[in-house]
């Protein structure tokens, strides 16, 4: 068994996950290899789900793997024959952890987090919004990386909000994790991207939970220059709710009330901004400067 820590969870895994930080301690999550016995409905989609409940989720992605995730604790994975290790790892670090988070009632936001002076900014937004580019801009300007694609939010007993460190690797250009879920055509692209655009970020990685300063929701529009707007009241709630990682799980596992309250609590405690950027041109430096000016950092 390999032992790691990521997203605040200690993980024992039969699969080598070299991007994760090694750690000791009692395992929160155990990942083993094994057969998955289930009647997968073939529905023409690359993703088949045959069993979904809060305590047990079983599904597979064609030609990649099937998995069973129980109680956010016990994971069994049956890789498809001939699957590349790197592709399987993306499956584990996105799809499998997606299940684990919701079974454990954790709050994952789809975004990266960068750190300066012991505080972090979460850059959220849809795939293609420009999260990776803006994250790179921050890293090039002395910020450190806390997580690349999934920001797990936690509240301490004094209602301070922290983001959990993930692992020291990030993806450039496209949001692989999101694409991963869509169809087989993009999976080939993923493999190329896997070799080409995965960037080791050990030298800039922060491996401790960090207080959350603000969430930036990034989106593309037909504006000429980047624009930053502070959101008020329920706008904050809606922006955060729309950026929950794999948010459709909330309905699937019937935990609307829990997540409504949790996102509501987050919206009451943090600043949220909407950053719109033009679709053309490299404006990430301007975007960063807008954020720094607004937050006075």
């Amino acid at each position, binding site marked *: 068994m390999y032992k790691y820590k990521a997203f605040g969870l200690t993980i024992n895994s039969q699969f080598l996950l070299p991007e994760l930080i090694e750690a000791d301690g009692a395992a929160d999550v155990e990942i083993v290899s094994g057969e998955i016995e289930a009647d997968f409905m073939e529905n023409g989609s690359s993703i088949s789900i045959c069993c979904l409940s809060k305590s047990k989720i079983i599904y597979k992605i064609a030609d990649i793997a099937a998995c069973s995730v129980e109680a956010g604790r016990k994971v069994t994975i049956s890789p498809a024959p001939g699957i590349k290790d790197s592709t399987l790892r993306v499956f584990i670090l996105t799809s499998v952890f997606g299940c684990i988070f919701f079974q454990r009632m954790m709050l994952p936001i789809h975004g990266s987090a960068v750190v300066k002076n012991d505080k972090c900014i979460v850059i959220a937004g849809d795939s293609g919004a420009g999260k990776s580019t803006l994250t790179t801009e921050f890293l090039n300007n002395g910020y450190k990386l806390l997580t690349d694609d999934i920001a797990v939010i936690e509240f301490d007993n004094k209602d301070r909000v922290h983001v959990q460190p993930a692992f020291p690797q990030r993806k450039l250009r496209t949001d692989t994790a999101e694409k991963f879920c869509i169809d087989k055509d993009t999976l080939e692209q993923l493999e190329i991207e896997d070799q080409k655009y995965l960037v080791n970020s050990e030298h800039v990685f922060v491996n401790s939970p960090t207080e959350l300063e603000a969430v930036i929701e990034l989106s593309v529009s037909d504006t000429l220059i980047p624009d930053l707007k502070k959101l*008020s*009241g329920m706008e904050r*709630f809606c922006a955060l709710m729309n950026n929950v990682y794999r948010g459709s799980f909330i309905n699937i596992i019937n935990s609307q009330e829990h997540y*409504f309250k949790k996102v509501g609590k987050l919206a009451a405690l943090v600043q949220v901004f909407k950053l719109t950027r033009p679709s053309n041109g490299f404006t990430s430096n301007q975007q960063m400067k807008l954020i720094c000016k607004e937050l006075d950092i």
Partner: protein
Amino acid sequence: MYRNITKETVIGRKTNLPFVEMDGEVGMLNVDNGKYYSLENVAARIWELIATEKSINDIVSILLEEYEIDKDNCFTQVISFAESLKNEGLIDVKG
């Protein structure tokens, strides 16, 4: 049984309905249909008032003290708002 809301109707928040408050706005979730709602300004104030059951008469007399609005208009709007809350399953209605 359908009853129109009148000046005498008593309304109160549905119990166990999860809601959040921020910057004077209220967001709520109807667990039965999974829909989110958001209330602002006077609507948020009415939501605050019906934490304990109140008649439309009571609500209107409080609002008349707090807002510049004429009485008839206030009744019309409060009743119409209460109908919406009722139709969306967010309040309990008595009498």
